């Protein structure tokens, strides 16, 4: 158990109010678009109106005539510098500016730079591009057809197939399913959607001709990795690049990749010797930057008549768009999708994924998700419900029957994971109790008799976060450790710097709380900085709920290094041996004589003024933490919906979320994360969709068409928790940011399907709109 510190110290478990709030509530945040430099100019991208077309000619003459225009850069210009293409984060490459042909609507074709943003926009309108339209490939199910157009002429392999990946025992699984007396099958599409953080992507690139240094203010969730990639791709010495990720207006995975606009701004700044700002519009953001999901999945479960599951088989087609720009660890083409056995004891499992190209925006990013965990969790939780219908059993009962019991942890899954800890029944029991599950089922029965539609959806997810151990996890070769450096000043105050980057998660508060816990320095006395590659230690950044599991571990370990040195200094000050000292948060005291003590502040002062002979001055440490395993947060969510038979409208009446993320640093912040993640899950289940018409025109490419939940549709979330610490993490924490987004889509969908299950409905693809529901009701003769 974590020792409770005083509220003044504010260590783990305290709902410390956020330190970063003060500037934000005054409008004094510093987001990328707020950066204003002398002589700064503005960039604007010219984008393709076509999804697939050959570029016959680009005429920039008229654009150049617009007053204030400084440069118009095309793909051919970049090709001369070897920069027309750049590597993606996953064994593919992507055009920075199109050469030869365009492969998706809104693809980047030219970059205009002008003295102000209006002039840049004017000139971009005047860039004349002559296109010859080519046949368009929209449906991934046709990507591998013999007559499908080959999209990527640059590749040796003349096919739209990107990868095949499989894990598990195909034959044993097949046999187990064949022999099972009960079978359940579901075809589920996890639709293409977009994280849409409220701040779009952008940068200010400032190449200083006098010093030869390039500074880039960047909407980046991973500033260090981005610096390295800029150095490797651009050939600029890494010491001459400084990436600053200032305040970030939400990321959710959208700000992990490197986008063409960044590269263009850097090239323009190198060319002009002036700072270049490029900020995309919302429409550009939705149409061209990293989309998420687009997984077309089939799951089959074989089970005994008593409901015991025997085998799971999953087959998936992954639509990656025009370039495989998935941002995920190198060894995992389908991310951590093999977590798809979820919370259940499957003796056999097999999972395969094929990735294909289409004429759509590139991506496959992890939207508030550890690389395809959301897809996996959605699929298994949907499939379990379908199985419950087959068995005519209660979906909660079925789950309880098949949960991995607490005594089986660490648990080896048939697809290769070693779950660290879990107590799934405890979370389920708590959720059932909070919901009043039995009464709800009774109410549902009575409503059904009256012809009213009410549904209850259960989702008991297990997810996987904290990538990751260096033996298995790297992004383009860089191991996925993370780091923390702590310096204690002579007066006992401290500064800490990390390799991560908050985008709203509250790092300026939570990481100091870890230090406060470990060293007893009040959280108010600790400053935290992230995001400046010149000052912070190297780390892989913040996404996939990895900050607490990885950088949190680093923070804890760096603090402990400091404590070890502090012990030596305390022994010197108290004139006892180190073994005679005991620690409590904030001080060392002599065993059996608690009044003989030295506070951490006394010790910090001595570290600069009164050291034992031969000891190096100062009190600081840096730690690069390589996690021994991932962490596996879990929980049970229960959703209650009412459906209007006249309109098909779905009202989320209640939503109960019981999360177990191990030990908690700041309960207030954890709850805030859960509220936010559930709301994103609500959006995904009912609203968010990026689709394409048959010509490859993007539908859902702006906030008029891409619906997001407002305060009106969003219910009050009812949260609860259980606590099963991670046994391998220094502070027993697991990470929480993505859990509500991973676990909730299935709960929403299960609830709607449950409301309609007596009509024979077994599955509805997301987003479940009133129109879809109304059509089903009409077909079933239920619509009013």
């Amino acid at each position, binding site marked *: 158990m974590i020792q409770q510190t005083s509220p003044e110290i504010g260590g783990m478990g305290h709902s410390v*109010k*956020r330190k*970063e*709030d*003060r*500037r*934000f*509530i*005054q*409008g*004094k*945040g510093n*987001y990328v*678009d*707020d950066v*204003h430099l002398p002589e700064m100019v503005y960039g604007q991208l010219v984008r393709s109106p076509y999804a697939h077309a050959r570029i016959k000619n680009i005429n920039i003459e008229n654009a150049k005539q617009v*007053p204030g225009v400084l440069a118009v850069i095309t793909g051919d210009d970049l090709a001369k510098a070897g920069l027309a293409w750049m590597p993606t984060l996953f064994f593919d490459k992507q055009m920075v500016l199109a050469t030869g042909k365009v492969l998706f609507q809104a693809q980047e074709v030219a970059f205009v730079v002008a003295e102000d*943003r*209006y002039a840049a926009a004017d000139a971009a309108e005047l860039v004349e591009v002559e296109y010859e339209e080519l046949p368009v490939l929209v449906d991934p199910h046709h990507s591998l057809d013999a007559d499908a157009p080959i999209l990527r002429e640059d590749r040796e392999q003349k096919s739209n197939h990107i990868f095949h990946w499989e894990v598990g025992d195909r034959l044993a699984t097949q046999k187990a399913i064949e022999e099972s007396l009960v079978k359940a099958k579901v075809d589920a599409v996890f639709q293409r959607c977009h*994280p*849409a*953080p*409220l*701040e*779009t992507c952008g940068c200010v690139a400032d190449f200083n001709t006098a010093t030869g240094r390039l500074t880039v203010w960047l909407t980046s969730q991973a500033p260090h990795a981005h610096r390295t990639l800029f150095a490797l791709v651009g050939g600029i010495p890494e010491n001459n690049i400084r990436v600053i990720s200032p*305040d*970030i*207006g*939400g990321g*959710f995975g959208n700000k992990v990749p490197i986008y063409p606009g960044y590269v263009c701004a850097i090239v323009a700044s190198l060319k002009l010797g002036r700072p270049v700002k490029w900020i995309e*519009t*919302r*429409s550009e953001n939705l149409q061209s930057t990293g989309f998420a999901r687009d997984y077309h999945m089939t799951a089959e479960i074989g089970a005994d008549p008593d409901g015991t599951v025997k085998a799971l088989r999953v087959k998936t087609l992954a639509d990656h768009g025009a370039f495989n720009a998935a941002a995920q660890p190198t060894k995992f083409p389908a991310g951590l999708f093999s977590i798809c056995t979820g919370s259940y004891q499957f003796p056999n499992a097999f999972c395969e994924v094929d990735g294909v190209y289409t004429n759509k925006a590139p991506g496959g990013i992890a939207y508030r998700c550890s690389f395809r965990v959301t897809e996996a969790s959605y699929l298994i939780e949907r499939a379990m419900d379908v199985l419950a219908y087959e068995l005519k059993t209660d979906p909660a009962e079925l789950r309880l029957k098949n949960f991995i019991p607490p005594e089986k942890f660490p648990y080896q899954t048939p697809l290769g994971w070693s779950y660290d800890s879990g107590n799934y029944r405890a979370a389920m029991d708590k959720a059932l109790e909070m919901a009043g599950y039995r009464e709800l089922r009774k109410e549902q029965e009575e409503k059904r008799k009256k012809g009213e539609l009410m549904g209850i959806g259960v989702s008991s997810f297990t997810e996987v976060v904290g990538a990751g151990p260096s033996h298995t996890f790297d992004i383009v070769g860089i191991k996925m450790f993370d780091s923390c450096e702590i310096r204690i000043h002579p007066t006992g105050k401290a500064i800490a710097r990390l390799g991560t980057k908050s*985008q*709203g*998660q*509250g790092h300026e508060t939570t990481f100091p709380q870890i230090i406060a816990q470990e060293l007893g320095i009040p959280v108010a006395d600790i400053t935290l900085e992230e995001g400046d590659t010149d000052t912070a230690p190297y780390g892989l950044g913040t996404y996939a709920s990895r900050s607490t599991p990885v950088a949190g571990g680093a923070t804890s370990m760096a603090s402990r290094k400091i404590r070890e040195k502090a012990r030596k200094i305390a022994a010197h000050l108290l004139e006892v041996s180190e073994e005679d000292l005991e620690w409590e948060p904030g001080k060392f005291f002599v065993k059996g004589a608690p009044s003989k003590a030295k506070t951490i502040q006394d010790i910090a002062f001595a570290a600069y003024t009164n050291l034992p002979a031969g000891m190096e001055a100062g009190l600081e440490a840096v730690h690069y933490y390589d996690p021994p395993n991932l962490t596996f947060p879990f929980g049970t969510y229960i959703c209650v919906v009412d459906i209007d038979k006249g309109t098909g409208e779905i009202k989320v009446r209640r939503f109960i979320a019981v999360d177990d993320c191990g030990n908690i640093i700041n309960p*207030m*912040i954890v*709850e*805030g*994360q859960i*509220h*936010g*993640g*559930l*709301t*994103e899950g609500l959006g995904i289940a009912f609203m968010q969709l990026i689709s394409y018409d048959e010509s490859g025109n993007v539908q859902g490419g*702006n*906030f*008029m068409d891409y619906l*997001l939940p*407002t*305060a*009106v549709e*969003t219910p*009050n*979330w009812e949260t609860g928790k259980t606590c099963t610490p991670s046994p391998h993490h220094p502070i027993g924490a697991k990470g929480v940011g993505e859990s509500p987004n991973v676990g909730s889509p299935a709960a929403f969908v299960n609830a709607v399907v449950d409301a309609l299950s007596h009509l024979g409905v077994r599955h509805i693809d997301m987003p479940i709109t009133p129109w879809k529901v109304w059509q089903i009701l009409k077909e079933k003769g239920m619509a009013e």
Partner: protein
Amino acid sequence: MPKTHHVRVRLNGVDHEADVDPRVLLVHFIRETAGLTGTHIGCDTSNCGACTVLLDGRPIKSCTLLAVQADGSDLTTVEGLMHDGQLHPIQEGFHQEHGLQCGFCTPGMMMSALALLGKNPNPTEQDIRWAISGNLCRCTGYQNIVKAIQYAGRKMQQGASA
């Protein structure tokens, strides 16, 4: 070049004037001409509300108005909320109730809330949810924003009766 227009506004109690292109958006005038970057831009279709400011006391989306249309008006932005170094109750509410995460929606959200509280000092939860329905937040799920606005409402009423 288009003919410029002279625009003069009272911005957080201070006069600002400039010659601007007729097509310049009010939000760009506030952020770039007046240099107050607390008002944000989150979309290009008037949907997100990150740009909300008060124009003569009414909440407006400053991305949807031209600077010339605001000529002669009295504008309040997030930078105008503090008084004598004291946080406004709405700012305090957002901090106390954890009503913000990334902070990008926060300035616009607070301005919409303030307009509501001006008309309706004691709003119900539904009143609040409707009043901020033109402001998107991608981080908080709105629940704590509702609480923050309720906190401010209580505090402002106490202030008014004290």
